[in-house]
């Protein structure tokens, strides 16, 4: 009996520890292999956006360059004033010492990546080295391994951040492709999307643009865009949608933060996908129709609700937040709001924003699944 009691006690304790490990948030790893994407055709805005993505992603720069005091908070500091001060600092003996201007700053930034100890900001050196040795890893060496194009992109981003015109060359067709690994440091690692369809689904492009048979017309149709625009223009219109407004459409309508939320490779993969789209939507019945959604979540994804509404953290704000809608509206009201969105307009929002043809697009079962799903959404 004693033996069984002791074993039972020990096993229960072990199961308790195991259960606790399951109670904590599970960071699901991305097991996909790194993707490589071409940077051909990028204009400087796209290159800067790529640099920002690398700075916050593959480069892992923000692990230390943040407000925690491990390294200078580059994103928050007044770098326009800081760079000239560094170049003029008598302790700095590197390649750009004593020089001035954007080109010298480019040389300084590049040097700080490939030889971080060339200049160590006071108070940020390795302990005991009197600020002569930097704890920063050399970014073109393992484990970070940025290539020349990626370092140039980061330099362009940092120059732009300081209000300077980037002086780095744009990548050419001969340059190495940009390799991007799934981000696993810091915040929750969103899985890296490696196909155009997946990116379009994730970001709900078809909610506003005619794509994948959505027929949406809040933004221009994306079919045939490869013939109407250059690759660089497409990239620009994604990351800075107000730069050029297509005729017949309004400014400030498309979210302006895709440059931040899309990873570097995702931006390029999406661009490739859009550039290769046919001139018109495939005819109905050609076998490419989407299958019926069988769960509420599938239906929500299929119709891209989260592209305009804040839903489970999507933070979109073109339409009202959907979390907690079950407490504000009845199921019938939700159903009406989907099939006849202009019947009642929520305070602070405008009419004619939401497509009014969901009744045609959705099967009855899909409509019911969505209503059930929304009614049960927590706050």
């Amino acid at each position, binding site marked *: 009996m004693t033996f069984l009691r002791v074993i039972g006690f020990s096993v229960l304790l072990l199961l308790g520890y195991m259960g606790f490990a399951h109670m904590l948030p599970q960071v699901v790893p991305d*097991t996909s292999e790194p993707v490589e994407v071409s940077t051909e055709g990028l204009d400087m805005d796209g290159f800067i956006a790529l640099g920002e993505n690398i700075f916050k992603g593959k480069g892992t720069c923000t692990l230390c360059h943040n407000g925690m005091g491990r390294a200078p908070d580059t994103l928050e500091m007044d770098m326009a004033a800081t760079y000239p001060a560094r170049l003029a600092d008598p302790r700095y003996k590197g390649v750009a010492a004593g020089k001035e201007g954007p080109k010298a700053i480019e040389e300084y930034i590049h040097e700080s990546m490939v030889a971080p100890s060339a200049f160590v900001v006071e108070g940020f050196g390795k302990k005991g080295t009197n600020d002569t040795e930097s704890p920063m890893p050399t970014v073109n060496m393992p484990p970070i391994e940025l290539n020349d194009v990626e370092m140039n992109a980061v330099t362009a981003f940092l120059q732009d951040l300081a209000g300077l015109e980037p002086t780095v060359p744009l990548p050419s067709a001969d340059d190495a492709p940009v390799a991007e690994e799934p981000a696993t440091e810091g915040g929750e690692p969103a899985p890296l999307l490696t196909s155009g369809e997946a990116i379009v689904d994730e970001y709900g492009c078809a909610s506003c643009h005619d794509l994948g048979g959505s027929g949406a017309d809040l933004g221009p149709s994306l079919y045939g865009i490869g013939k109407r625009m250059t690759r660089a223009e497409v990239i620009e219109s994604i990351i800075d949608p107000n730069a050029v407004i297509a005729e017949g459409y309004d400014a400030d309508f498309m979210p302006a933060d895709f440059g931040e939320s899309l990873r570097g490779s995702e931006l390029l993969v999406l661009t490739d996908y859009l550039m290769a789209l046919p001139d018109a939507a495939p005819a109905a019945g050609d076998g490419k129709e989407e299958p019926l959604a069988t769960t509420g979540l599938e239906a929500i994804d299929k119709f891209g609700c989260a592209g305009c509404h804040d839903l489970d953290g999507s933070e979109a704000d073109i339409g009202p937040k959907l979390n907690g809608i079950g407490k504000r509206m009845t199921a019938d009201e939700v159903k009406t709001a989907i099939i006849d969105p202009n019947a009642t307009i929520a305070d602070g929002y405008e009419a004619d924003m939401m497509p009014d043809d969901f009744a045609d697009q959705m099967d009855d079962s899909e409509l019911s699944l969505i209503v059930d799903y929304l009614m049960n959404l927590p706050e």
Partner: protein
Amino acid sequence: MKLSHLLALFAAVVLLVSPDLVFAAADEAAAVLEGAPKPSRLDYPLIGGISARTVVWSAAQMHLFLAAFVLAVPLFAIATEFMSVVTGDDRFDNMAREFMKITMAAYSLTALVGGGLLLSLLVFYPHLMEYLVRVFRGQMLIYAMLFGLESIMLYVYFYSWDALRRGNRKWYHMSIGLLLNTVGLTLMFIANAWVSFMMSPAGVDPTGAVTGTVWEATRNPLWNPLNLHRFLANIAYGGAIVGGYAAYMFLAEKDPEKKAHYDWMGYTSNFIAILGFIPLPFAGYWLMAEIYAYSQQMGITAMGGILAWLFIIQAVLIGTIMLAANYYLWSGLMRTDRGAQYAKYVKYIAVVIVGGFLVWLTPHTLILTANEIQNLGGTHHKILGPLGIMPAKNTAVNLMLVFTFMSFQLFYRSSRIPTVSWAKSGNMIVVALYVVGIINIVGAGIYGYITPTVYKVGASVPQVVSTLTIIIGSVIIDVFMLRGAKAEKVHWGRMTERSQYALFVLPVAFTWLMGLMGYIRSSLRTNWHVYTVMKDNSPENYIPTLGDAGNVITAITLGFMAIMVFVFWLSRLGQTKQKGTEDAA
């Protein structure tokens, strides 16, 4: 044969097997340097649906558990053997012998699992093994030779116990024990060199080509911190397992005399376990500081990145260990008639231990969803957030250690009445040590809040010094003050059954904790076999989720517990005689 001859022979063998242990590989500098292998995903053998990583992980962890046990017990044995000589108390000697007998059974299982680990590595990760052999060359053969020597020493140490038990012969026996432990620790240090090399490679160039000597690869930046951490952990682990055994025997025995013996064994083992455990957090800090110094990225991955949640589990495990060890000590106050007068302090100690546990448990940098951030009103909780940073945690840990030591001291004092004339002054000095030390710990903790991040770790140094000063200072004063003290009778065996379960918590929690820390240490390399030098391109090169890791660690711990039960059973089987045979003889 003289000792000098033996040493010369050993040196000759070393040179023969691995001359580069002593001489730099000068000729290699001239040769074309070959970098580390770069296996692609397809180069990793796929055998059926077997998860290569789980197989190697299980074999490595099980080998480590068993090896820690068979290395820890001789350390434990030599310490208790020494105690028997110093105190003249044969109970120490008997206990040491009893445990060496158990080690004998566990030793062959350790070797067996070690062989399994080697085989699984060769089968599933041949390129990594080829590379490690290239880096460490003859050292692996020396490891094998030392393993043979360890076996010989172990057998000689155990079987000569009775022959070398009394008088000067006891010192010969202890010398054999010392040699056994030296060889055992050397084995551990060599194995540590391989795993620490995988985390912080040295003696190779950025491509992985071997440019240095074996000694340079061995003395990589994380080798010594890992050596110290594992050495202390082994002492604590050995004590915890022996304590668990004693607790089981206490519960199973009906004979009061034997019950008293196992109660005493449990107390002594718990003492040794906590003795090894108290400096462990400091060794852990050193290891972490060296990790940060070697690679900030690696450090942040552990403490503020993808692995940050693991340290919350670690806090739960260590908190459980602290609470269980203290509960056992408080229960022990009933063994003495004067214990009751100290029991009134228990509730205050309990408040500090539980409070410290809760602070340690408080997370800081959380991985949150957008909704959670919105509900929380930011990335950190407004009230609890400040308790999640290092100054609060360091303060909590140091206070927990100080008060755990106080629990020990209370029991020790309960069985002795000082007779020296300066007892009152001595007590006042001890109280002053505690008060000043605690003020210093709390003060340095508050300072940690107002200093930049880079100095926060530095602020922990005076806290550690305060903790050690309280402990060492109190021990020194007690040694002199209680010399010639009036000894009160200790009623060994006068313990509740519930208190014994606290002793089971220690080995179970220690074992699971070791599994968890192994998972953390390996995961720090992320998708590298050898960090920055040899990439892991295998299909399982990602960090498994906490839940998956918890499942594997639990399964291995259960397996280890089953082995331990088997080993203990074997040991008792050896003492069992067939009924009636003695009479017939």
